[in-house]
């Protein structure tokens, strides 16, 4: 049905897609990670500027479909100002939402609700996931002290 199309491409998704947030390069990059799904060619860079365990600014650069671009743009918007631990928890929540394991979304993360529509398109879930998984990878490496290098991840393998 065209309704399911409109479910996936909700206005909010199309809005993020048309004018993605987080385009501006950071003054200082503390966490950098890249995601790549060879099967569809989607590529994303997620960079964080960190101050006192808090995300001061986010830069997201995404080459991909509307879903992955919008998802990355939402990430840039939502994660900014959160602590690293909060950011990680939100990414976990998005994974659960996309896998249908969680449906409740806190009010302050309202935009994320728009991602639910992707669940009806199984092949596209990994597009929506890519930015979040990339973020998590960066956070994990940062926490474990592997700083400096760039973390690298994919949602192609459907392992997460």
């Amino acid at each position, binding site marked *: 049905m065209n309704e399911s199309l409109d479910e996936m491409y909700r206005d909010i998704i199309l809005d993020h897609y*048309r004018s993605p947030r987080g385009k501006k390069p950071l003054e200082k990059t503390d966490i950098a990670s890249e995601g790549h799904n060879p099967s569809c060619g989607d590529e994303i860079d997620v960079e964080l500027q960190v101050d006192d365990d808090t995300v001061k600014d986010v830069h997201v650069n995404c080459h991909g*479909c509307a879903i992955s671009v919008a998802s990355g743009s939402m990430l840039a918007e939502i994660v900014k100002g959160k602590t690293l631990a909060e950011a990680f928890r939100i990414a976990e929540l998005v994974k659960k939402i996309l896998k249908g394991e969680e449906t409740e979304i806190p009010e302050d993360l309202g935009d994320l609700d728009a991602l639910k529509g992707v669940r009806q398109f199984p092949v596209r879930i990994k597009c929506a996931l890519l930015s979040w998984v990339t973020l998590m990878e960066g956070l994990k490496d940062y926490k474990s002290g592997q700083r400096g290098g760039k973390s690298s991840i994919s949602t192609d393998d459907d392992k997460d």
Partner: protein
Amino acid sequence: MASKTTQNGTSLRSGPTSLMVDIVKADFPLLDQTIHGHKLVYLDNAASSQKPRVVINALLDYYRKTNANIHRGLHTLAERATDSYERTRDHVARFVGGVDREEIIFTSGTTESINLVAATWGEENIHEGDEIVITEMEHHANLVPWVILAQKKKAVLKHIPITICGHLDLSQIDDIITPKTKLLALTHMSNVLGTINPVEELAAKAHQHGAVVLADVAQSMPHMPVDIPSLGVDFCAFSAHKMLGPTGVGILYGKRELLDKMPPYNMGGEMIREVRFDHITWAELPFKFEGGTPNVADVVAFDAALTYLEALGMQNVRDHEERLTGYAFERLSELKDLEIQGPRETGQRGGAISFTDPNIHPHDISTFLDSRGIAIRAGHHCAQPLMRVLGKVATARASLYIYNDEADVDQLVEALIEMRRYFGV
């Protein structure tokens, strides 16, 4: 509605078509359905074709009346099943231009056919420093086995580049195909660009240097007359499922002299002559390469697919697709900035039309078109190196077949126009 015009051929736009598409269409039960409220327009034929009623019925008939394990069976069903299975082999041997039946090996698909050659002929004949030549437009099936073989054997993998127009760039060919070349493995028709490659000419050149030539005819065999003897190649691989046949059947053609010398691939029942714990002799061709119970039912049903294509006439199939491709080019040109890959001369290409929109990702194109009932494919089409050359991460691909007509193209173009409005970019 342009579909009407395909019958009387009076539309200025479409011109007369060599196939009675409406009649053909009616032979394919799957096409008669709606998707998201729209009549299905199936344009994913390069991935897999639909099946005419006669093929589905042949399957049904086989399982209802004939089914039994084949060869060496001394009961009526086994004899009937063996007859039917072997009749398809004869048919394939005729269909591809008249080769010996022993040169036709049934596999599970093009992919297995090529892997068989790599693991047997390749394993024994490719040595350190030898050169394997492929092209930049190969499908992974005719690429990955050679990359891995070259790595294993410390052989050199070379590729023929493509021009900006999507043809093979033969300007440096004499530096690429040389006396060191042991194998030339190339596609006859690109599944992304549609390009028809000059296989005869390149095979002749490779043969001058004593190389063996394998042609991946997975895309050409379903869509145009392919005559293996005149191609002059040593091996050919293709899949039944792309040419109206069932899934799970592939064909390997191999020259007898080469097949005779190759060790077997899948070893088990029916492919041996005599087995002792310490000594084994192989069965004669083609059985040496058909170990285990074959996919009998699907091979038997494939016979009906060949008959159907012959009734249409492969030249008519080709003419129809060539015309329809021209019509599609014309109509797609209405979409400003839509980028089409591959040659524009319809005489030098098949009906796989890859395109990109400057502002909309191929995945979004595909999802949107699906919401309008149109099935196309989006992605790298198992040709990642080619995508890199094209500078694309993915393309959208609409690919035509005998049951497509001007109306299908019209529906595609109108949906693309609507799509641009929808995404508002």
